[in-house]
């Protein structure tokens, strides 16, 4: 119990940080190359720079495809990495450190919103991942599935059409287009509000949390933001320090 509490705690290892960098780089590339196609009328009238910066629509399309495939490969790497970490026991499923949503997260969300409204006295106690983080994380998973799959169909329409049942071919392409572009809009707005506010704009984070580069979080922040994980790692020493 006398083990010295370190000043910082390693929250994300190198592999996880690399995966995050690839994810947001490809995300930004996809957003900026795809936006022109989402709102083409406005693109031509107001902001053709969105097309020009890529050297034309054709190049933008090529960049979009390369970034999309890179993102999907990165996603596959992440899933395989998690499978490896869990199967070798290097990562353990524990209720205070898991990213998997639990009933407690719903309670936390309610408690937190009540606190925002001034109806609750205390903020909820979070583990390694709060419900805010979990939402952020699974939104990416959802997006990968929906946008990645529909994007794959749109990139290889002839080949994809072989797999579609014949009763669906009259409307499936419209559904896929809507899926791809509306989900992409959802993803962009989500990142702009949820992720940017929670990881960049908050008082103690502005202009950004450095965790994405260093992988580390200060013990002070950990105690405040992830008290349950802190207790799990370092016991209850926090208060008598």
């Amino acid at each position, binding site marked *: 119990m006398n083990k010295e509490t370190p000043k910082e705690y390693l929250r994300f290892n190198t592999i996880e940080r690399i995966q995050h960098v690839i994810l947001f780089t490809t995300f930004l590339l996809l957003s900026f190359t795809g936006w022109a*196609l989402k709102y083409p009328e406005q693109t031509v009238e107001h902001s053709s720079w969105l097309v020009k910066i890529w050297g*034309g*629509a054709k190049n933008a399309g090529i960049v979009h495809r390369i970034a999309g495939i890179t993102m999907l490969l990165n996603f596959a790497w992440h899933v395989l990495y998690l499978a490896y970490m869990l199967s070798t026991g290097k990562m353990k499923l524990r209720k205070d450190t898991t990213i998997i949503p639990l009933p407690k997260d719903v309670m936390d969300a309610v408690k937190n919103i009540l606190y925002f409204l001034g109806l609750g006295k205390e903020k909820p106690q979070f583990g390694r991942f709060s419900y805010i983080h979990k939402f952020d994380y699974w939104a990416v998973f959802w997006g990968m599935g929906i946008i990645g799959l529909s994007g794959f169909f749109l990139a290889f*329409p*002839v080949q994809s059409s072989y797999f579609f049942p014949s009763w669906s071919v009259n409307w499936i392409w419209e*559904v896929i287009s809507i899926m791809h572009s509306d989900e992409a809009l959802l993803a962009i707005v*989500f990142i702009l*509000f949820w992720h940017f*506010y929670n990881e960049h704009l908050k008082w103690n984070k502005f202009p950004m949390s450095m965790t994405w580069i260093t992988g580390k979080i200060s013990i002070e922040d950990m105690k405040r933001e992830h008290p349950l994980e802190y207790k799990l790692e370092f016991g209850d020493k926090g208060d008598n320090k």
Partner: protein
Amino acid sequence: MKRVFLVALLWIPLLCFTYSASAETFTCLACHSAMKGKIRTEEGVLIDVNVDGEKYSQSVHGGFDCIACHKQFGSNPHEPARITNVPQGIASLASKLTHKAKVDPVALAACSECHGDIYKSWQQSIHGSNVIQKKQSDGASCVDCHGSPHYITPKNTATSHINKKNIVKTCGECHENEGLARKYGFSTHILERYYESFHGKKYVIGHPNAPTCVDCHKYHDIKKWEDPMSPVAWDNRTETCGRCHKGATKKFVTAITHKPYGKDNPVPYYFEKGMIVLLLSVFAFIVGHVILDAISEIRDKVLRKGKEGHHE
């Protein structure tokens, strides 16, 4: 002598033009480039008699004498039209176009003198047969798509009505027209649906490979899509789509229908509605959460300064 001098004076502004038209053209343009507005003919048709000399000179036909096409007019001021000046073939074609070109059907028929093959395939097209056989004055002829022959510029110039940048709009002149759509039973949704499709979106943002109307439907010899000769008839679609989408099958080519969302197309219609509900509810949640969070943070920092002190 004085009269000659005045006539010479009239020529001075014309000499400023840089075009290479013949003397006869100058004679016509002396009046017609100055005449503004419309006049009513004896038949009671309102016609525009103005010809912009400068624009004419820059057009592909700028080097022609006026009477190369306006074959029945030869003097100034005009004598009554003399059909005898007109070659047999053009005269007979013109006689089928009197309802379409009310003032000078000969001029409209005269296109065929140089563009004979195109004219023939147009006559067999849905646009041409509508004019020639069904005698409709609102059917599309040369000038409806290419604009006035006086101002036709090469296909690759921005002013050309059939330039890739303008062609969809040119088709839309009629195909977005409610009245014509009702009369001929086509849908005005076609262009809208094209613009919403990936083909149309790519076209709008300037993708060089994006197909326009004419890439799939053809142009001079355009047919109704149900006509087995049409490139977009069911049996020809695999070939037509296959020009860009190698390996296109029967299953693939149903992708483009230009059908409006709604009754005929319920799945995407309700899917889109569902997506809007999903998007708006997620937006409402995240934006609401962020705003409440921010307000409570400000409240904690400003109003409850002392209470949370032990961590700061």
